[in-house]
């Protein structure tokens, strides 16, 4: 067999390749941000001139969402599910085959999108055939994970397992409906196309990016702090409320727009209710930290986790407020929303994945993280860069929305001119974020090639740093 059967190899390989896709995806994001400052940057340069903002943006979003974050999530599933089930991954060979499949698919995503093969639906831009293959990719991963669940030794399902099972059952439904049942003809048209697009666009966050991320924190926090989960009851409320409340919220992306008023109202009501599962989960996380806050100082994975929890709080307070008609009337269509989206997928879920990689990789390859100093740099540069990025987009969005409200959009160009300083600050923030990830990837590379042998006890309670 050409695919490795070594325990942990599929998870490790997914982590390795996901961080590469992150660097590529973020580079396209930075490139897009720079194009907003220098619109004629690529003009008259052969071939490059085709890579205008509209071609670059989908490459960025698709590669960071499916290449980086989903790839890291697959690795997390392969790492955590066997451990909470007290068994091995059902098939490392299938897992490693999926790694290759996913890398080829992501390459195809990038190439086709750069060539302008765009389906015209946000976050569902890839062509029909690639969507079918995306479903195959998810199916290969989920089948492997479900078989692992079926073979579990640990009969009691831990909270992490609920979230991961929940995602496995619901995310494919969201993807298939949101991508028009994978039919090449796209049977749903008109405003209903937008309704379905946002059902997908928002719920792929709610039923894929959220549950795996939250599930990973439920796994990491007790490991990193040595504390048990604070409240079992809150865990249950948080999980079931998430599954119940998230689904109908998609139309809040179309508030004040040309979709039925009742549909907007339903979306707004459920969006506001999202506060319940989010605050329940966060209360539980903060409770679990009780008496162990001091550990944050010593452990970079814990730093990333706790920071992600703060960002999760902000993003999930913003979300319900943004859905309100009055708030939406100012911030909708502005840079504020771009900041909000990055707060969720970068500030929250990507940070959780950084923590997961720092925790899981030493255990997968039996090596200590190469440099504790680089780990710290990765954290601080990511945090400062992201804060600059987020604050400039948020304030910029408020300025933009106010510009439109003040003159009823009659002097539209004023809103473009006024965004310039914010666009520049945002690109600087983005460059810092990307720089942090370059350090991160270098550290991972050195860990894999030159890391010292991992000593189990030094890494417990997040004392990876102390061990160096």
């Amino acid at each position, binding site marked *: 067999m050409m695919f490795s059967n070594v325990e942990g190899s599929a998870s490790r390989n997914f982590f390795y390749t996901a961080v590469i896709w992150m660097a590529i995806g973020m580079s396209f994001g930075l490139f897009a941000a720079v194009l*907003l*400052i220098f*619109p*004629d940057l690529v*003009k*008259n340069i052969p071939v490059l001139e085709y890579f*205008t*903002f*509209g*071609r670059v943006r989908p490459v960025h979003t698709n590669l960071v969402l499916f290449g980086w974050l989903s790839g890291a999530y697959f690795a997390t599933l392969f790492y955590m599910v066997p451990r909470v089930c007290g068994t091995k991954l059902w098939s490392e060979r299938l897992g490693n085959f999926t790694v290759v499949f996913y890398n080829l698919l992501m390459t195809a995503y990038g190439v086709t999108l750069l060539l302008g*093969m*765009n*389906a*015209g639906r946000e976050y569902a831009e890839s062509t029909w055939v690639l969507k079918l293959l995306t479903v195959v990719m998810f199916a290969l991963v989920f089948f492997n994970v479900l078989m692992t669940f079926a073979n579990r030794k640990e*009969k*009691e*399902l831990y909270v992490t*397992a*609920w979230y991961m*099972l*929940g995602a496995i*059952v*619901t995310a494919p439904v*969201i993807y298939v409906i949101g991508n028009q049942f994978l039919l090449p003809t*796209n049977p749903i*048209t*008109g*405003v209903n*196309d*937008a*309704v*379905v*697009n946002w*059902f997908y666009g928002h719920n792929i966050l709610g*039923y894929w990016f959220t549950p795996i991320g939250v599930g990973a924190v439920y796994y990491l926090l007790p490991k990193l702090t040595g504390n048990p989960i604070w409240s079992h009851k809150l865990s249950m409320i948080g999980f*079931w409320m998430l*599954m*119940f409340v998230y*689904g*109908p919220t*998609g139309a809040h*992306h179309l508030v004040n727009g*040309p*979709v*039925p008023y009742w*549909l907007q109202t*339903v979306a707004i009501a*459920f969006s506001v209710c999202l506060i319940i599962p989010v605050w329940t989960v966060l209360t539980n996380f903060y409770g679990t930290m009780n008496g162990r806050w001091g550990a944050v100082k010593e452990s970079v994975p814990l730093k990333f986790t706790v920071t992600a929890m703060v960002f999760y709080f902000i993003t999930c307070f913003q979300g319900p407020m943004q859905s309100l008609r009055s708030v939406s*009337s*100012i911030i909708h269509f*502005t840079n504020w929303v771009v900041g909000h989206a990055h707060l969720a997928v970068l500030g929250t879920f990507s940070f959780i994945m950084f923590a997961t990689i720092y925790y899981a990789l030493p255990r997968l390859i039996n090596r200590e993280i190469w440099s504790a100093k680089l780990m710290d740099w990765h954290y601080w540069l990511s945090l400062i860069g992201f804060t600059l990025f987020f604050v400039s987009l948020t304030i910029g969005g408020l300025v933009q929305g106010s510009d*439109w*409200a003040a003159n*009823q*959009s*009659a*002097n*539209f*160009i004023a809103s*473009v001119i006024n965004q310039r300083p914010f666009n520049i600050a945002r690109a600087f923030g983005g460059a810092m974020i990307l720089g942090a990830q370059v350090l991160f990837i270098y550290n991972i590379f050195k860990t894999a090639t030159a890391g010292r042998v991992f000593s189990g006890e030094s890494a417990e309670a997040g004392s990876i740093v102390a061990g160096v």
Partner: protein
Amino acid sequence: MGNKFERNAALLGLGAFLLLAGAIVATVAVPLMQEDLYAASPSSPRYSGMYADGKPISSQVARGREIYIREGCWYCHTQQVRTLPNDAAFQAPAVTLDDGRTVGGRPTRPEDYGNDNPALLGSQRTGPDLKYVGHRLPSKEWHIAHLIDPRSTEPNSIMPSYAHLPADELDALAEYLLVLRDWAVPVETLAKYPGPNILEATDDILPEEYQGLVNPYSIDDAAVLARAEQLIEDAGCLQCHGPDMRGMTAEDGWGSPPYPTNWYEAGKTHSDQFIFWVISEGTLKEDGSGSGMPAWRLNGLSDEDRWALTTYIKWLGTQE
């Protein structure tokens, strides 16, 4: 109960699935069953002979739409006018028909999208909304010039240049942008075209609402003239009217008539009201012919701005 879900993975999965299924029924299936979302609307291009069976019958328009999708124009331009005063400038002009009905001048509704596939509502407004751009900017020449070099028509634009696209693709894109309009508003009702040679037109053709207006400024007011000069620079007027403000002709490399007007001439021969009218409404015909002069009333210049420009041109008329 909790205990059961925590031991039985299938039960847990089923529970999660059923909760999501409820959301799908309520927010995906029910809207799909709402017939009125597909109801015929005279505002939608589909029902005015432009489109048939949901497909535009002009292949060039259809091609333009495909290019619009391919180049990702829809990431920065919405095509929805919300039910908010903030979006007022993006509405189609309100017009009262002979039978007393008023058309245009409203936010977009579900039926305005017919069975667009995909529907291009957009989610971000880095650039202006385009749902009714065909009313605001009905000149194909203007659109093509704008696509080739956005900074030539709007110096502060951050739109990419599409100079690298073949000429027929630019033509298709412009064709598509021109059909983005409210098709319930009759084309002829909106025509306010002063004729191909503006300098020969007289106050006789001045629309009623522009007759009798009074210029609040005097040509002796240096502050107004300075303000006008700033506006001219910001709006990029001289890209067409020439750096010396004496217009452009074939000799200056301008392709074909109508030629951009010589302001020194216009200031001598025309009334304040006429100049104010041309600046306000542009010289474009609603069918897309005419010249590329935009209707500045709809493009960010206030009444005071346009009067200041009028005053400046009248002042030029007194200079050599």
